[in-house]
């Protein structure tokens, strides 16, 4: 920036004063550099940005799910988004007679798989749970042990 001012001020001697003023104005860049940014409040972003700013403070960065995101020790923090199988395939009726479908949500020990592992949404998990219990009562699924 000092290089720029020198050649301009050199040839025009009578204009040196106003040019130097402008040069000064140019040199003193930091304040007038970004005219569109008012005094340091960062309100130039749309107001919708504020809440997301807070959200990023609450959760670890979603940029690295499972890997660099969970370095605090919570490995299971942000595993890849599991979708609810029933919502995706639009299965409305979860029937207790459909033991093959129900058997997918039952562990080896016969226990019902929790929602955080299977990725099922809450209303479907409730219906699924009722259906599994009904199936257990009618001996389509076991209460405990391997499902034959």
């Amino acid at each position, binding site marked *: 920036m000092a290089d720029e001012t020198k050649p301009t001020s050199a040839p025009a001697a009578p204009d040196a004063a106003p040019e130097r003023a402008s040069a000064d104005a140019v040199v003193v860049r930091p304040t007038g550099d970004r005219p569109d940014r008012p005094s340091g409040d960062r309100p130039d972003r749309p107001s919708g940005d504020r809440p997301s700013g807070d959200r990023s403070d609450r959760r670890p960065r979603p940029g690295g799910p499972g890997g660099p995101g969970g370095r605090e020790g919570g490995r299971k923090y942000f595993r890849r988004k599991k979708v609810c199988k029933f919502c995706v395939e639009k299965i409305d*009726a979860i029937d207790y007679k459909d033991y093959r479908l129900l058997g997918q949500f039952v562990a080896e020990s016969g226990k019902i798989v929790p929602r955080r592992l299977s990725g099922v949404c809450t209303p479907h998990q409730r219906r699924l749970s009722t259906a599994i219990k*009904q199936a257990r009562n009618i*001996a389509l699924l076991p209460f405990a042990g391997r499902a034959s």
Partner: protein
Amino acid sequence: MNRTYELMFIVRPDMAEEDLGKLISTLETAVASNGGTVKGVERMGKRRLAYTVRKFHDGVYVLLLIEGKGDLIHELERRLRVSEPVIKFLTVRTDEEQKRLEKVKKIRDAHRKATPAPAAPAEAGAEPAPVSA
């Protein structure tokens, strides 16, 4: 006003076919005499049980679709409890669930009609208005 039920019961595997038929017809007459209707009978065949029931490892599954009042189910279950070949039964009330499924289906059909707009402009004009509003 009538409720719909699904009554599933398991019969011991060493029972003869005609005895099973007799049992089902007995139940059907009981339903009719108590003011209900049998919507359907489904014999699901012999299946391996998930656990031992009264020392049996297999059983013949039968499903009855019934429409009637609650007292009818009391009567049927009483009969099933005393009948010797039946080893397990389960009654599930289905009318509320059917109502919910129909409602969901109706909403979904309304959505489907709304999306092909050039095909049905009148319906598309009528339906999205209550849906989106």
